[in-house]
């Protein structure tokens, strides 16, 4: 039961970065027999409502209409919860995955990169530029 629900959820895309799922991002914290427990990324992320609606629709469509969705704030979401698979998908999509050491250009893999702005197109991203290939790119911020 829990496995089949997780399988359903692993196909629910993040509305802002549809290449990764809500499971990849660590938004799904727990699947119980009667409920899916989720946590918001940033307090003000506008995708939060869309994520809940996406999960609701996926549960309903897969015969899990009785399952509730619970939201918890604690412990606070961290990018450490993004799965290895999620990180690989972000990189392939052109978004540098969060890194506590080197930021790697998702286009040419150079580490010669610089920050343009710590605030980007969504709360979770910062704008960077690669000095090697010259391309600007998004970095998923460590959080």
């Amino acid at each position, binding site marked *: 039961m829990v496995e089949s629900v997780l399988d359903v959820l692993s196909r629910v895309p993040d509305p802002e970065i549809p290449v990764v799922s809500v499971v990849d991002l660590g938004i799904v914290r727990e699947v119980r027999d009667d409920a899916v427990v989720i946590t*918001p990324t*940033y*307090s*003000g*992320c*506008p995708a939060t409502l869309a994520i809940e609606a996406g999960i609701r629709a996926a549960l309903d469509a897969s015969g899990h209409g009785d399952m509730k969705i619970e939201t*918890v*704030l*604690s*412990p*606070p*979401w961290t990018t450490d919860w993004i799965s290895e698979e999620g990180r690989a998908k972000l990189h392939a999509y052109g978004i540098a995955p969060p890194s506590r050491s080197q930021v790697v250009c998702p286009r040419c893999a150079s580490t010669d990169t610089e920050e*343009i*702005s*710590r*605030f*980007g*197109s969504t*709360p979770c991203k910062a*704008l960077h530029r690669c000095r090697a290939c010259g391309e600007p790119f998004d970095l998923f911020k460590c*959080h």
Partner: protein
Amino acid sequence: MASLFDHAIRLGDDALILGQRLSEWAGHAPMLEIDLALSNIGLDLIGQATHFLKLAGEEEGKGRDADALAFRRDVLDFRNCLLVEQPNGDFAQTIARQFLFSNWQELLMTEIAAAPAPALSAIGAKAVKEVAYHARYASEWVVRLGDGTEESRARMVAGLDSMWRFVDELFDPADGAASLRPAWDARIADTLHAASLDVPKPRRAVTGGRRGHHSEHLGHLLTEMQFLQRAYPGVTW
């Protein structure tokens, strides 16, 4: 000691009103990056406000949710500090307000994250990660403007000057925030020193926001923020 409801309302109103103020910059900031940054900071604050006001509504137990508290209260019922309702002014004035507020909010959220009330501490623990970015952003701009051209320096000094009389209210002993003052003073002095600016001289404090005594500015802000719910009560997307 303030009740959990009072506490959550204050924190929620601070974040809501400053978030609304910052949203006024969207499309008007001096550079695209600044536009994005101020919008993102505003978004974080409005998200925090949603959590705090939801908690306040649950604590009150009269069926008011975050939207009801944000959109269906009038000026006298708001408990935000006067600092956050001050008009944006020029970019330096906005940065001065953000600098003073975010440094205070980061200390406050750190304290709340460790507080005994679990519902409050969960919001604080989430917020502190976001606010650390805001404080760093505003502090960097204070240095850039203060240590920049004659013009940018003069504007930064004027911005700090215009906001300084609202600082004391942040540390009102009635809110239990007085203990944060030494750490805040040290942070502010460090950044101003790096910006080669002087710490503004103490001046007569203007207070009253926590009791609902607001400046005229708040009413105008609410007029715009609450327009839709006033014109079409209960409307949803």
